[in-house]
């Protein structure tokens, strides 16, 4: 069903709407461009939201006589209220979950638009077996209208996988879904089965079915199978790989919008969808590179399984106290802070900054080393530290800070584990071998603030904790940092 044709049928405004869509596409492009620069990012987000508002408004105005006003308005109001509440109330530590949830809803919407379009065809053309409008029928490829059928099944397929995949990612990030759960759903054989089933149903529901009722059956079945596939694909993926998965699902939601663009013959959806798809893919590749793993490896390999047997526990671990670390802080001339997910969980970003401020005030050189996959989302640590007003000039990327550890008196690792595991460099058999890590052990002394000796998400032992120059400071990151601040100020 062409959106433009629908608009023409309402009389007037169809062409004007096309121009508004064109302007919106331009603003989306400019908005995304500005979102990738620190100083311009906020205005970029504004440009994109203005474009969205204009596109939605012009669609509403032109279609006002055709669409049911009360349904439309109540849908918009309900959605806007829920969106606003979630976006303003949710604490920043839960940002990864929230982004995953929004992403899933976008995919759901694309899926539903495609299903509603099928409903429209069936109700308008009601007569089974007749030649269908807009080429939505058997053998339509030769008739030149096959793209409707292909686009509808693609929208359903990608949208459904995005929806349940994002919901599982949401569950994992918020700790509601156990990361290491094993079962039939999520096994590779089951995923292959579901994928093949979905492709067959795509073909059936798009091209092979010979009546509207079978088209409907096939598409409803496709929806169910694709929903199951989304669960199965994300369920076995470990928490450490979540930054990759979220980026990839973000890309999918763009592709789903793109497919919906072909359903509606609307270029704005295609432009916006393809740019989002590309953006998600770029982030996915950046995250994969940061873990030295290929995308297929992330999706198909179960992380950490091989290493479980060789874990023999820790020996030679030196536990330390707030007083002892305070002594070290007192004499340190240079200090690097390595934040990890534990910092986010303990909400310790403000305490970290308090300690860093105090150290800076007495002349110590303070820097933060940010690993690209620290946390559960691309750029997670940057967002958290920004909330605590840490100047981004003090944040350093892996490549630019790794050479500096050897000239540093004191490194404080706050709730990070796998991103500073020497196995990645030293042990070629380790599951994380070759992953770029922060070489914290090069520093004079390393203090690791951690709740226990438990594994990180990669589920492997970290020899750093046994190193001669490493001290373990056990405790909740926030409380531990608070103790440090108090102790060091008392000296």
């Amino acid at each position, binding site marked *: 069903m062409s959106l433009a044709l629908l608009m023409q049928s309402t009389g007037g405004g169809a062409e004007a709407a096309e121009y508004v869509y064109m302007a919106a596409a331009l603003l989306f492009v400019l908005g*995304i461009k500005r979102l990738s620069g620190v100083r311009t990012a906020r205005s970029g987000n504004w440009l994109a939201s203005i474009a969205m508002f204009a596109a939605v408004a012009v669609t509403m105005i032109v279609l006002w006589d055709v669409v*049911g006003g009360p349904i439309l308005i109540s849908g918009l109001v309900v959605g806007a209220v829920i969106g606003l509440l979630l976006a303003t109330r949710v604490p920043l530590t839960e*940002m990864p979950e929230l982004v995953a949830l929004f992403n899933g809803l976008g995919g759901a919407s694309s899926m539903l638009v495609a299903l509603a379009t099928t409903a429209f065809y069936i109700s308008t053309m009601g007569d089974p077996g007749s030649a269908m409008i807009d080429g939505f029928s058997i053998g339509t490829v030769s008739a030149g209208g096959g793209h409707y059928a292909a686009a509808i099944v693609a929208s359903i397929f990608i949208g459904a996988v995005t929806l349940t995949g994002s919901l599982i990612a949401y569950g994992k990030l918020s700790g509601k879904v156990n990361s290491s759960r094993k079962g039939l759903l999520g096994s590779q054989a089951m995923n292959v089965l579901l994928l093949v089933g979905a492709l067959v149903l795509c073909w059936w529901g798009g091209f092979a079915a010979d009546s509207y009722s079978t088209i409907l059956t096939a598409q409803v079945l496709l929806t169910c199978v694709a929903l199951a596939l989304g669960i199965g694909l994300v369920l076995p993926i470990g928490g450490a790989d979540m930054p990759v998965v979220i980026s990839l699902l973000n890309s999918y939601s*763009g592709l789903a919008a793109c497919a919906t663009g072909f359903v509606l013959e609307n270029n704005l*959806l295609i432009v916006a969808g393809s740019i989002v798809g590309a*953006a998600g893919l770029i982030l996915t590749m950046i995250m994969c590179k940061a873990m030295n793993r290929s995308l297929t490896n992330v999706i198909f390999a179960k992380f950490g399984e091989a290493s479980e047997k060789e874990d023999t526990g820790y020996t030679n671990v030196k536990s330390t106290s707030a007083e002892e670390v305070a002594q070290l802080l007192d004499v340190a001339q240079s200090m690097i802070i390595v934040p990890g997910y534990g910092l986010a969980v303990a909400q310790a970003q403000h305490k970290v900054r308090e300690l860093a401020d105090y150290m800076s005030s007495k002349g110590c050189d303070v820097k933060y080393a940010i690993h690209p996959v620290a946390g559960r989302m*691309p750029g997670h640590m940057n967002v958290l530290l920004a909330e605590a007003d840490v100047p981004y000039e003090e944040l350093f990327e892996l490549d630019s800070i790794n050479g500096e550890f050897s000239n540093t008196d004191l490194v404080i690792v706050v709730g990070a584990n796998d991103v500073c595991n020497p196995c990645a460099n030293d042990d070629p058999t380790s599951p994380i071998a070759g992953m770029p890590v922060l070489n914290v052990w090069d520093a004079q002394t390393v203090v690791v603030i951690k709740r226990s000796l438990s594994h990180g998400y990669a589920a492997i032992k970290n020899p750093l904790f046994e190193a001669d120059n490493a001290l373990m400071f056990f405790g909740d990151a926030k409380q531990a940092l608070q103790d440090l601040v108090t102790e060091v100020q008392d000296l």
Partner: protein
Amino acid sequence: MNYALIAASEADGSNVRFIVIGLWVLLLGIFLGFELISKVPPTLHTPLMSGANAISGITLVGAIACVGADYPGWGKVIGFLAIVFATVNVVGGFVVTDRMLGMFGSKKKGS
């Protein structure tokens, strides 16, 4: 140039022509997307993702058409849900992105 042929194909509906134009747009859009954000500072990974996520809610435009008078009852129900979900995605996505970017901004004053 056979004008009669062109006229006939235009009267025939826009199907064939749209798929060609649409695929051109898709091709250039993907290329543009890659070029636009080939180099993103890690600071912006999260806001970029969440902003892009909000843009993918553009499917809302399609959802609006799905509560049209010609749609059967259950089609309208699906359309209504599509509108709600897409609006949550759009509004929530843009607001949360602005909230995050606001923090990046406020710290400039501090330093």
